[in-house]
């Protein structure tokens, strides 16, 4: 082919690309019009969650174009299957790092997925849930978890399965704030509510309030206790806008709920930190936790929670540029992972303790990304730990063993 032919082909290619781009923009605009409150549909965002099932298969959920999509990997994340849509009918989906789709497994291999759906007005949402009883091939029609249907905040869902196989979901809820506003009374922050399902996710009991005055936009950490209960660790609002954290068990009987303050950094601020904590509970009951605060500049902390008292074995993990830490425990081994950013990109950092969190080895770099990254999520499988790290270049499962 001669020079002119090549030029023609280049022109045709360029025009084809332009048309494709325009058509993409067009369909985005049309969809955004059809769904009030919907963010512009686009490729998958970085808000993803991952979990291992009992057969060491890795499952990843994220959101793209109005669908929560599920992928699986049989080779520790090296290759991922083609995605399966969890919700057949597209709907708006929150997909940021703090408010991302979640995945968990039931005792018989049931696959549970939850997410938050933006409603038309700012800061509003519904908590959504769907399940698969055939290993992710088909999903139930999504249901709204809470019985309250006001167009207010019910979002930042967190999902866990307790020792009896109950599906437990907690979320941030503003019904108390709205009621106070209607009466002209002050109310700081939002609240945390929760519900559970005793029939493998077919239905959820009417929700219960866990605590008034929670932070408005920080993820809730859930972890299972050795007794099989689900515990929550989340940012609250104490006194005059002090953004410390609370710890609570989530009873699934008539027992009263009792959230206790568990961090005492005294960070006073009227702001959205968008950085929720992490929690992992050891077989001995030790509550390993990580959290962010900026009372004296940005800082990420590790500590062992002693609700009602300051945490024990406090350790400042990192300062400026560090974000979104997570924690995992197996036996006496405790893993801490977080993102460390600088002008050149993102570094995935790790610290490991082999004595139950009393001492930690020096921080180690385990991965780097020039492209944007999501929040790291520590996963354990048979005593090994991995970090699920979603980057704009693709999903990565990063091993934590020293090279």
């Amino acid at each position, binding site marked *: 082919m001669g020079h002119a032919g090549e030029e023609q082909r280049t022109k*045709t290619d360029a*025009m*084809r690309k*332009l*048309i494709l781009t*325009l*058509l993409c*923009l*067009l369909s985005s*605009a049309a969809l*955004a*019009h059809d769904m009030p*409150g*919907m*963010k*512009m549909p*686009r490729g998958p*965002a*970085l808000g993803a969650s991952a979990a291992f099932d009992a057969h060491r298969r890795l499952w990843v959920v994220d959101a793209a174009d109005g669908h929560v999509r599920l992928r699986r990997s049989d080779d520790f994340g090296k290759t991922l299957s083609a995605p399966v849509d969890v919700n057949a009918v597209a709907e708006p989906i929150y997909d*940021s*790092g703090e*408010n991302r789709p979640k995945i968990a497994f039931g005792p018989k291999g049931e696959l549970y997925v939850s997410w938050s759906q933006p409603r038309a007005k*700012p*800061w509003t949402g519904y908590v959504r849930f769907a399940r698969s009883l055939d290993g992710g091939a088909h999903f139930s029609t999504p249901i709204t978890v809470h019985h309250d249907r006001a167009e207010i905040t019910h979002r930042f869902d967190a999902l866990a399965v307790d020792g009896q196989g109950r599906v437990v979901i907690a979320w941030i809820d503003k019904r108390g704030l709205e009621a106070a506003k209607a009466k002209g009374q002050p109310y700081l922050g939002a609240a945390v509510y929760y519900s559970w399902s005793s029939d493998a996710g077919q239905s959820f009991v009417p929700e219960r309030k866990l605590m008034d005055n929670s932070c*408005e*936009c920080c993820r809730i950490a859930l972890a299972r206790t050795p007794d099989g209960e689900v515990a929550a660790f989340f940012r609250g609002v104490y006194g005059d806008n002090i953004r410390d954290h609370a710890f609570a068990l989530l009873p699934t009987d008539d027992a009263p709920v009792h959230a206790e303050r568990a961090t005492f950094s005294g960070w006073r*601020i*009227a*702001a*959205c*930190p*968008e*950085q929720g904590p992490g929690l992992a509970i050891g077989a001995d009951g030790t509550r390993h936790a990580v959290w*962010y605060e*900026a009372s004296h*500049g*940005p800082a990420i902390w590790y500590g062992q929670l002693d609700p009602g008292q300051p945490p024990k074995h406090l350790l400042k993990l990192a300062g*400026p*540029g560090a*974000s979104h830490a997570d924690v995992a425990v197996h036996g006496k081994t405790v893993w801490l992972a977080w*993102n460390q*950013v*600088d*002008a050149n*990109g*993102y570094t995935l950092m790790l610290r490991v303790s082999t004595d139950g969190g009393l001492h930690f080895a020096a921080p180690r770099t385990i991965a780097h990304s020039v*492209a*944007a*990254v*999501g929040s790291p999520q520590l996963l354990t499988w048979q005593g090994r730990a991995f970090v699920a790290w979603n980057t*704009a270049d693709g999903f990565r499962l990063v091993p934590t063993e020293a090279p």
Partner: protein
Amino acid sequence: MRRLVLAALLALTLPAGAHAGTLAPLSAAEIPALLKPPAHGVRILAVWALDCAYCEANMQALAKLQRAHPREIELVTVATDSIAHGVAISARLEAMHMDSYPAHAYAEASPERLDYLLDPDWGGETPRTEVIRADGSRLGISGELTAAQLQKLL
């Protein structure tokens, strides 16, 4: 093929017209210009996010201050949400009557790197107010500004 391009272009401009052109993507390369000291007075970056319920009141307080000192204050809004949410960001700016100020939204899929480049001593909480003075000095404050803090910005 040209006709198809034209048709697509036409259809694209119709619904977008009302809010077009005001929201600019902010990438790492553009941050130095935003942080460059102004010739006189102060540049105030009102940094906000779609999720942030405190940001609207904070921006409006800054706008009020700017209107009281139009020669001294250059006010710029910066959304830490990705520009992929541009439709929602522009709509929100318009709803809170903040659309007359130069507006940026992050051009990256996660905010941390741009947060760090704007101010390494900031952990990403919003609202964030960044003040850049003509003499090169800087001030960064997280959270909704109190009346006393607002007074000290100039």
